[in-house]
């Protein structure tokens, strides 16, 4: 509801409302991009591009209720563009060159709430990264749908709008995405029990 009001004001050129929309949706869009690329820098870059595009084009948004799927459409388009660039121009993050171990690793730096239980937090981050790497083995189309549904909590209708495909296609991609993940987890011997032991 808060979003709808902000979108309405932002459409009329309210800079303050646009800024608040950025603060409200930045984390979601960043996490979507991060899970899509499994790369912090790319996720940041695409997120910024997404919100710049939002700022430029929000005046042309027809329906306020479609803001969410519209924003994800922009983000997915930038993701695909970056993916094409990445395929043609192979690059490696400096963090990946020297990942380090334990407290020396960059993941330690990135992990939040370290003061609470640093060791447990690090293991959690490593597990997340492990599962994230499983997600990266899916095809781009399946990964988009799984992230949008499972992590971003979009409805199937909203995903269909964002990707400009039918709901049945979304569900079909979701099914085969989950089936693929099941096989990947089996191959890597990751089960609910092993995760429970790790945590």
């Amino acid at each position, binding site marked *: 509801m808060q979003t709808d009001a902000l979108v309405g004001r932002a459409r009329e050129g309210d800079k303050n409302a646009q800024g608040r929309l*950025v*603060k409200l949706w*930045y*984390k979601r869009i*960043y*996490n979507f991009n*991060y*899970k899509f690329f499994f790369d*912090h820098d790319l996720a*940041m870059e695409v997120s*910024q591009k997404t*919100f*710049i595009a939002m*700022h*430029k084009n929000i005046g042309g948004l027809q329906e306020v209720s479609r803001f969410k799927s519209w924003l994800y459409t922009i983000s997915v388009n930038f993701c695909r563009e970056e993916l094409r660039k990445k395929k043609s121009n192979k690059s490696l993050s400096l963090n990946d060159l020297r990942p380090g171990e334990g407290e020396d690793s960059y993941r330690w730096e*990135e992990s*939040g709430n370290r003061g609470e239980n640093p060791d447990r937090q690090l293991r*959690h981050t490593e*597990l*997340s990264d492990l*599962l*994230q790497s*499983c*997600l990266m083995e899916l095809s781009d189309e399946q990964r988009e749908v*799984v992230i949008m*549904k*499972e*992590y971003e909590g979009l409805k*199937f209708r909203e995903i269909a709008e964002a990707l400009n495909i039918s*709901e*049945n296609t979304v*569900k*079909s991609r*979701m*099914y*085969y995405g*989950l*089936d693929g*993940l*099941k096989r990947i*987890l089996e191959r890597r011997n*990751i*089960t*609910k029990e092993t*995760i429970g032991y790790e*945590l």
Partner: protein
Amino acid sequence: MSYKPDEATLISYLYGELDAKESEKVIQYFQQYPEALKQFHEMANTLNVMRTVEDKEVIAPTIFVGQDTGSPFWQSSYFKMSMSIAASFLLIIAAGKLSGLEVSYSSGELRISFGNKQAIQREIIQPTNLLTQNQVQEMIDASLTTNNSVIAANWTETQKKLDKSIKNSLAVNSQKIDDLMKNTSHASEEQVRGFVSSLQADNLRLMKDYMQLSSKEQKQYVETLLVDFSSYLKEQRNQDLQLFQTRMTSIEKNTVQFKQETEQILASIISSGSKSKNTY
């Protein structure tokens, strides 16, 4: 039960987005196919495992977007692109002009040249003295006349040579015949007699052989002729007999028929006579 939920239905069921009626169908399907239910549970477990991935904390950066005052048209990408294409063409044209580029196509020949056009000296042989038609005709006539006279001279000469050769040949042959006659006249009487007697003996032998051979052939021929004649007579006799028999049979038939007709006529006459008598 032929119902089998498709992927979309299973996913909707997994997220609890299926209506009650459809859900009931899926539950019944799972009850009938425990293997499908097992697979479904495995998928749900996969989902639970994947849900342990946490969101990354991130602070939204301050995004500065400058005032969009509307850039002039010469800063637009379309203008820049069209200008760059035009500049490229201009550059190419200028380079072509400076280098004297010339591209031409005529009568199936593409010519690309640089620099000034150089005249190509071609040697064309001009006819110096042109002959008229009459002159050519005169030349042909003169040539024909000369040719004819040469042929006639050759012919006369060849004829003369031929006559001479025939005369020589005749003279040689007559000389040879005269020599032969002279030799013959010089032959002795005995030689002549011997020659004649040998000729007579040869003739006699030939006549004998001929007569002998001739008598044998005649005998064979006469025998054959007699045999053929006898067979002919026999055949003729048979045919005559058959003819005679046929005639006789015919006469017999006619006689019987005549007899029957006569009887019929008589019977009719008698019957008609009796009828007339009764009427009276």
